[in-house]
């Protein structure tokens, strides 16, 4: 059975099913852009499998984590700069 977990996105608490990838959880919460490119353009997930690196976010203080490869975990703190 799916349970729910709480994650913190840019300081805002979000309750999500525990079997989601972080990328899916963020998209479902209405975040289309996860990060800004080197020239400031908004970017979101593309490949869904860890190849494109467009869904990079900061997880528990670690920058550059690919949201599509991260399962959500209770208490996870996520920072987007999109």
């Amino acid at each position, binding site marked *: 059975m799916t349970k729910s977990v709480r994650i913190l996105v840019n300081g805002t608490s979000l309750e999500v099913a525990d079997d989601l990838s972080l990328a*899916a959880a963020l998209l479902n919460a209405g975040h289309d852009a996860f990060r800004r490119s080197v020239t400031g353009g908004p970017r979101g997930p593309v490949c869904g499998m860890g190849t494109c690196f467009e869904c990079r976010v900061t997880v528990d203080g*670690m920058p550059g984590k690919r949201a599509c490869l991260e399962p959500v975990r209770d208490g996870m703190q996520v920072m987007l700069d999109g």
Partner: protein
Amino acid sequence: MGDVRAGRLTADVAVVGGGPAGIAAAALAAEAGRRVVLLDAGPRPGGQVWRHTNRHTLPGLARRWLERLDRSGADVRCGAQVVDATASLRLGVEHQGRPLVVEAGAVVLATGAQELFLPFPGWTLPGVTGVGGAQALLKAGWEVRGKRVAIAGTGPLLLPVAAALATAGADLRMVAEQAPAAAVRAFGASLWRSPGRLLQGAALRARFASVRYRWGTWVERVDDQGGALRVQWADGRHRWAEPTDLLCTAGGLVPSTELARLLGCGLVGGAVAVDELQQTSVPNAYAAGEPTGNTGMEAALVEGAIAGLVAAGKRGSGAVRKLAVERESHRRFAARVAQAFQPRPELWDRITGDTILCRCEDVPASALSGGWSVREAKLATRAGMGSCQGRMCGPAVQHLLGSPPDTVRAPVVPTALGELADLTASLDSPQGAS
């Protein structure tokens, strides 16, 4: 070398990639009594085609293989990204954030495929994903109910993705196959030899029966129109624009060969060259499934099984000979797919001067100079120097320059520097030398 903090693991057979090819290779090698480790970057084995959060939602074939893998005794390591490899078959791995060095007697590369992304104006906008990318995100729990979705891609992958989006409640507006109608018809006609595939295709099409499915149709550009996407379509005769929330688009699949190239394996036509026993040009290194240019889950299972048996020392077995016969029909199918669904020239012609090629470093096409090699372009413009290491822009940069890909260097994916240093230290340390 001082304090080496990397974990160490020795295995008779190390399998890289936990899709069908890797699962079959690991299970068969472990059943043959070998110590096997399976390394996969994802949260659980299955690869792209069998990506899941709950095993019970998978087709029976997938469940049976996963159960067989469980029983085989193979050591399955998920969240394990291989970042370095040496020709002596030592693998540098970032395993759940910690460094791990695997020393293997044989390596099976089952690294799958990635989508071929062809740049066009607007392809960097949020809401533009890959075709397989959309499916991967759906399987990871993405909710698309009620969203307007358009698909523009090529090849057999279009049908299951369109069906999955429709089943998930998306407002699917268009499924566009870029290949010309004549090529698609010829491919369809060739399927009389594989009625199973034909039936499978028809069943998938039935799940989005009311949606337009056009052949010889592609996307020219996408613009942001007040939060929605405005897609400009073309079919060679007409151009027209339609709004959508999401556009799923790619130019097909290409073998993932970075690790094979780092090991020094020879390539042929962009795929890892293998012999009848799935052996690459590097001793004791095997490749199976998509990296060899063969395509699809059935082919991957057969090639993985052969590689697993041979890596386990069972090369003379009757099972290998039987599997080799099966492999032939998959190879013929793969050749027909490659023939019918190659990207049309118009897809390359979409690139304008200000189209971003390298998404990591925001390098536009106009920054390239004719006559450069891919390496020169990288040094001069940073194209291909970012996190994805040229996986996204590589095909376009190579096409525009008419230059082969640059050589691969470790790490094949970015890793925290401290960990990389640890891994390198372990690889170079005297106790690590063979």
